[in-house]
């Protein structure tokens, strides 16, 4: 790791100021992606601004018809939360599939969605559930949040504060693990929202999480595993690497969607 200066932010404003004044400063919450990257010297951080201790980023609450999750909520906390398990079982299940237990004890939802790794799990839930991302400056809808490979709508210095999930009628997540990293080779989140609309989000398969509209339409006609599995996904533009070709990923999307439909509750 290169030299850096660690700062434990005492407020969101202080963190934002540090980021504004130091273009090479980086936020650190769980650090489960950032620290290995820094260890490999693939990035430098003039400052590491730790926001994990900020009270305003904590919390896991029911607010009307939404579950609101503080940005520094760890995967383990979310997976174990009775509230989430009861209201959005697919989300709790997803959180319990991320990484491994020690990673889940530190990794946070805010860090994960801000990083927007193409194979991360959370983006699929945020997009499928049509969550709202509340930042230090504004609220960004899920459809607008994830913009590309490791890219989000977040502006420099903008910090994710909490993520607000509307409680769906049903949800489920199916993940096909990449066998080495245990990231998603393909992950499919299926949600039936309160208004009955169906959203299917796919991670791992493309350069960025995306909605599988062909599966959504098929499920709108018939919310069955067979309908999901019969929908075709084109391999064009999907990821291809040593772990899976674009064709294999394209094939897995409807297969996993069908399994998610069967699991959805």
């Amino acid at each position: 790791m290169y030299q850096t200066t660690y700062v434990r932010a005492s407020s969101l404003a202080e963190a934002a100021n540090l980021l504004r004044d130091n273009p090479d400063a980086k936020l650190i919450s769980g650090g489960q992606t950032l620290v290995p990257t820094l260890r490999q010297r693939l990035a430098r951080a003039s400052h590491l601004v730790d926001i994990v201790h900020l009270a305003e980023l904590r919390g896991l609450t029911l607010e009307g018809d939404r579950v609101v999750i503080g940005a520094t909520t760890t995967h383990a906390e979310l997976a174990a939360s009775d509230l989430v398990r009861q209201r959005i079982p697919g989300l709790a299940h997803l959180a319990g599939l991320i990484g491994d237990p020690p990673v889940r004890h530190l990794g946070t939802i805010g860090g994960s969605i801000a990083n927007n790794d193409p194979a991360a799990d959370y983006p699929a839930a945020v997009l499928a559930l049509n969550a709202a991302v509340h930042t230090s400056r504004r609220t960004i809808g899920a459809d607008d949040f994830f913009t590309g490979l490791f890219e989000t709508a977040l502006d420099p210095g903008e910090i994710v504060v909490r993520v607000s999930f509307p409680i769906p009628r049903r949800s489920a997540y199916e993940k096909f693990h990449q066998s080495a990293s245990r990231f998603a080779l393909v992950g499919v989140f299926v949600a039936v929202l309160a208004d009955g609309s169906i959203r299917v989000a796919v991670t791992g398969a493309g350069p960025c999480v995306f909605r599988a509209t062909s599966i959504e339409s098929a499920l709108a006609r018939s919310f069955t595993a067979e309908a999901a599995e019969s929908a075709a996904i084109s391999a064009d533009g999907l990821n291809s690497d040593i772990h899976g070709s674009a064709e294999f990923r394209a094939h897995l999307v409807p297969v996993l969607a069908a399994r998610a439909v069967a699991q959805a509750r």
Partner: protein
Amino acid sequence: MAHDGIGARLPRKEDRRFITGAGNYTDDIVVRNAAHAEFVRSPHAHARILRIDVSAALRAPGVIGVLTGAELADDKVGGLICGWMIHSKDGSPMRAAPYAPLARDVVRYVGNPVAIVVAETKNEARDAAELVEVEYEELASVVDPAAAQAPGAPQIHAEAPGNTIYQWALGDKGAVDRAFAGAAHRVEVDLINNRLVPNAIEPRAATAIYDRAEGRFTLYTTSQNPHVTRLVLSAFVGLAPEHKLRVVAPDVGGGFWSKIFIYPEETVCLWAARRLGVPVKWAADRRESFLADAHGRDHVTHAEMAFDASHKIVGLRVKTIANLGAYMSTFSSSVPTYLYATLLSGQYDIPAIYAEVDAVYTNTTPVDAYRGAGRPEATYVVERLMDIAARRLRIDAAEIRRKNFIRSFPHQTPVIMNYDTGDYEASLNAALSAARYAEFPARRAEARSRGKLRGIGLSCYIEACGLAPSQAVGSLGGGVGLWESAEVRVNPVGTIEVLTGSHSHGQGHETTFAQLVAERFGVPTDQVSIIHGDTDKVQFGMGTYGSRSAAVGMSAVNKALERVEAKARRIAAHLMEAAESDVELKGGEFVVAGTDKKIAFANVALAAYTAHNLPPGTEPGLKEGAFYDPVNFTFPAGTYVCEVEVDPKTGAVEIVQFTAADDFGTIVNPMIVEGQVHGGLAQGIGQALLEGCRYDRDSGQLVTATFMDYAMPRARDLVSFNVSTTATPCKTNPLGIKGCGEAGAIGSPAAVINAIANAIGVERIEMPATAQRVWETCRAAQAAVAAQ
């Protein structure tokens, strides 16, 4: 007294330090004023070094020195060696090119060390290493062994035209040709034995110290054979004569052969410690382990088997290209030859075998032995062929094997080996019954109702262990003898220290070797300590690999124990005024047969040291040494049965049952032996399902250089194994031990692949059988069925 001799399931004596965090691994050792090393490595697969500028690095904070191949050459530090001479078919010696610890003119693989940076702290060394500027002129590279010999392929070493190191052959070509000509059936297969990275969880590390006053080096290092390391560094690299070089291998976190070889990094650290006048400490990070530890396997093979009308094998023909990487590592030449082709007879009576092996250089990390070393590759060839033959000839996979088993011993194969003993039918029957083989069809049908394809696969492996009779090794080109040494020191109070040239890095020698002493002398194991891994303590040894420690190392201990016992008996007889021939050692006491006269072993020891009353002409003390040179290899063998379920929609393979029935001869500690089998199985199953080292064909870049891309078997990838043993004690060593360390890795890949092929109903699927590969195979199989 609890039985803790041979055969006892004794929990390990060494465990306590490991479970409490008190282990003493190389990187745990603190040396005052030690500086830290970082290696600058080639980012290119093949390039000419035009210029190295170390000036900026030298100015960086904390830097003590930056050294390159030029300085290494100035100091006349020799190159690394490959210690086994192989001759080609035409009689010419293998074309081994020089292997400089730091590349000077040309780099030949990604990760090839170019310079060492030594600084006060690890981070300073890493900071400074980034400031070493190396200008390269990129050259074309080749990483695929099958492409390395092609006309126009990039030339890696001037010494090896066509990148061919040797073209070796074993067996009677004419006999095989005749057998094939007259055969009723022939089957053939093309196989790739996938390249693996050993990945012991402890990365390699070294701490090198030079004592200027004494002119003496000490090297703490992650080694499976410290004496061989010392021998090579002394006699070939020429860093110091042996008496001026102490090599210590403390607790070592797994090896699987990868910590046998004498590598550039340890060598350079030792030299840098003298040149820079500071102790130098280095520990690889995992990415470096991927780049710099010798890889394993990497064979491309075409094999054919011929059968007569009654399904008896009449001939086997094998052609293999073995990738040895960019330089020839310590034992690399022997792996695809004498550790491979000599096992191609498997458990079968095959009258004629002919194997040709071409070894090639490529622009990849050097390849050497990895758990099993040649024998897994041989088993894979034979057992894949047997399965394909069973399928083609429409007979049961177990039956075709049974029909061809060797049934009388000793058995001379057409490929050098002489099997002393075995009962292959017994292990096959044990495995089939434990695996409920007969009931498999019902399980398959049940799985089908769940949409899963269930398959079962067998593998009847044999290996040659107990490496190895020195004279035989020498006649085949080996540069060293493969005996083992031991010394037994009985202290005046009767406690015993056993010094062995074997090295434990997980095998549990501190327990099993003590069990041997307990067995012979009736001394509790807690009064025995096993000392190993330090050239200042143990006079010489050949180390631990090839499942040799029990069969060879323990036989040496046994020999020394016999000598101790003989002297102790002489003293005991004298003390009890009895004839030596009437005195026997029983339960820790010497007794005079037919009388109640007895004396405790400890009292005899005390008498030996007080020396007040010894038989005339007897020297004081009780300490004996021995060297044991095996007269033959040992031949562990067994049958593995793997059962899988394939999800045809995703290609996911689940191992649902794995059964092993092994014949290891005499077993010292069944608990430890089972552990060895479990670990070997995990590595073999890993090879079959998950692990595959990949280079980019165009650029020669290593693209599986972390655990993010190289899939290591995890707990959830495996099942609880169903292991058992049958026994035909080895006839060529005094303890009847055959060895157990590698069997799991040798026998299992074929069992897994045979099971998957059986599930899908195809002949061929490559390792690793990843989800994508399995899915594609399922799809092709379905398409083929649909087309019919």
